[in-house]
């Protein structure tokens, strides 16, 4: 946020007030917390609350096995959400991730059944790059709104899947299933995969020129272009990065399921869930603010909630109700401080009459 913080207020229509003020320099009591800190505090609060509730029911929440299960549950959604944050930061959106996951697991499992594991991994990543590239090019080249472009891509992938597969297909060798089930010490290997991908994405968004361009494009595409950023290229690259993360999620799920499944991505609604996690993590839906660290916090909150519900054996449908309430309430809490007028600190440099 440091680089974009000093940028002039986005000149786009001010209707999207999703974004959270960075909170620097606000001395009012109602100053908003840095969203990243906020979401991790929320995660902590949810954990403690869950611990108390479960303990009250006579269960034990903070066991090693449960903690490991929570981490394991983070992986798939976490990978998708990390990718999703890249596109959302850039001011775009990807609704095709769910079907890309499904297709990814199918391609992975089928290729592994006939060829080598390496070939399969490469095939999935190539598929991801292709889908991301097409998404990005449709958004930037044809100037189709990202919502429609990626929704259309989702339909295309769905048709492809339904035309070619009717059920689980392919087979994942035991050697590759280790990605889904092995542990290093108490921690599953897949968690390291998530950490690695997230760290890489963090480095890209925060430490490289591409990352700065992504923030600039998401903050105000027009201003970014006028400042010499190749916004089109940036958006395309963001889509490719997102799809690569989704490909990683597909590989993980293939390892986990030991086969490819047409419902791997759609049943868990990774498209909408990942967007919810990203926004829960404090990233502005309009782009330009937020980051990977917050997204991971959002994913963690959702995973902890899930675990608490499982421990209490809450009805799965009721779980959805609570989940919806939590998502809305959390975002409402973030959005709230924005109601106080921003102190006029941006005025002197921003608008010298």
């Amino acid at each position, binding site marked *: 946020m440091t680089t974009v913080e000093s*940028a*002039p*207020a*986005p*000149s*786009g*229509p*001010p209707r999207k007030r999703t974004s959270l003020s960075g909170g620097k320099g606000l001395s009012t009591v109602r100053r908003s917390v840095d969203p990243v800190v906020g979401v991790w505090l929320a995660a902590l609060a949810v954990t403690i609350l869950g611990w108390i509730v479960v303990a009250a029911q006579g269960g034990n929440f903070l066991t090693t096995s449960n903690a490991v299960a929570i981490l394991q549950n983070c992986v798939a959604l976490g990978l998708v959400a990390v990718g999703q944050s890249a596109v*959302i930061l850039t*001011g*775009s*959106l990807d609704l095709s991730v769910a079907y890309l996951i499904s297709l990814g697991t199918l391609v992975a499992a089928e290729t592994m059944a006939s060829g080598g594991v390496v070939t399969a991994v490469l095939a999935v990543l190539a598929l991801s790059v292709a889908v991301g590239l097409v998404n990005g090019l*449709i958004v930037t080249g*044809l*100037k*189709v*709104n*990202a919502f*429609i*472009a990626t*929704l259309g*891509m*989702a339909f*295309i992938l769905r*048709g492809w899947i*339904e*035309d*070619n597969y009717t059920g689980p297909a392919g087979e994942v060798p035991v050697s590759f299933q280790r990605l889904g089930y092995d542990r290093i010490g108490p921690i599953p290997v897949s968690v390291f995969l998530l950490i690695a991908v997230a760290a890489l994405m963090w480095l890209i968004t925060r430490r490289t020129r591409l990352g700065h361009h992504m923030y600039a494009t*998401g903050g105000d*595409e*027009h*201003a970014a272009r*006028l*400042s*010499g*950023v190749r916004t089109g290229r940036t958006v395309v690259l963001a889509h490719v990065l997102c799809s690569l993360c989704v490909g990683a999620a597909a590989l993980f799920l293939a390892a986990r399921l030991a086969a490819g499944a047409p419902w791997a991505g759609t049943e868990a609604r990774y498209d*909408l869930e990942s*967007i*919810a996690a990203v*926004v829960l993590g404090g990233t502005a*839906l*309009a782009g*330009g603010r937020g980051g990977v660290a917050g997204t991971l916090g959002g994913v963690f909150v959702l995973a902890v909630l899930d675990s608490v519900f499982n421990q209490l054996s809450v*009805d799965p*449908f*009721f779980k*959805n*109700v609570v989940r*919806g*309430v939590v*998502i*809305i309430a959390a*975002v*409402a809490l973030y*959005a*709230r401080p924005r*109601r106080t*007028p921003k102190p006029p600190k941006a005025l002197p440099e*921003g*608008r010298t009459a």
Partner: protein
Amino acid sequence: MSAPTDTGTPAKNVPAATPGKRVVRALGTGIPVYVLLVVLLLALLVTDPGFYEPDSFLSFVKRAAPLVILAAGQYLVIVCGEFDLSVGAIVTAGVVVAAELYGSFPDAHWLVVTAVLLVGGALAGLVSGLITTVLRVPSFITTLGMMLILEGAVFFWTGGSPQGVLPSAFRQLGRGTAFGWLPWAVVACLVAGTVAVLVTRSDFGRTLLATGDSDRAAALSGVRVIRVRTVAFILSGAAAALAAVLVGGFSGVSAQAGRGYEFEAITAVVLGGVVLGGGRGSVVAAMAGAFSLQALFTLLNLQGVSGALESTVQGVIVIAAVGLGAADWSRLRGRRTPSGSGPPGSTPTGAAPPGPTPPRPTPPTGTHPSGGTPS
């Protein structure tokens, strides 16, 4: 979605010189969708010469009715700059609630049940609207949460498998006919369409457009932005409930009744040239978009495209249609600002140095992002 990176925001003040241009202006952003609709209807005629027999054509309109009604409601929400992803869940919930109501009160009059559904839909819209406007949660998240809540609640209530039967009096609106030939669904569709057009022509409709264009400007000129947006959500919820009555009539009780309708409705509206992000577009074009989508489904069916590939073709055509719409417009208007990502007033003044160096041009109308609505 997010930032209105939409292209093809048509300039409002196109100088009306020739009659041709005036027609173009009257049709507004909808031209591509009317062309698409005509093409699809002609293709239907070629594929199935019997398509324009009154019976089969009316049944086509009947099948399109729920989507048209949903699109009209969705238009109101989109044009004021928001989203409503909860309409599909409202349709599902409506159908299931109707069945449950009949389970408890088998003798209830269908009008009562319909009214209850409409009020319930409006209530769901009211809640979404208030959360979006007062609590300032982005509508994408609000309505996504509302979708989770409604679906979860319905299935929780019914234990996962909604069942029950809808009496034929209730299903009459969905599958019955008036005077023996005119399906009630078509009547409902016409009424809803007329109401939608009247609403957009009214003062409220104009403030709705103004709000979507720039809520700050609208607020400064006296529009009660919160109220206007909330009313849009209420109307969308009620429209979804009406669609639920029709869908319940067609296909009876099912847990999948409304699945996917939210995206279809948004697709229809965008096909109609309405800009996601608000401020541009006409409701007639949005409803034409819904008809086009239904015509496309019918055509794919008749062409014998395997059910599976259907969604692929649909995806390609939707992307292509929206892409063509965007392209056509920038050519027609002589390419002013490429991709209007700024408000209409913020055309880049002064040739900004295209170099990558810092001189960061501040658009003249750098609106303050935190400017709330003055009450």
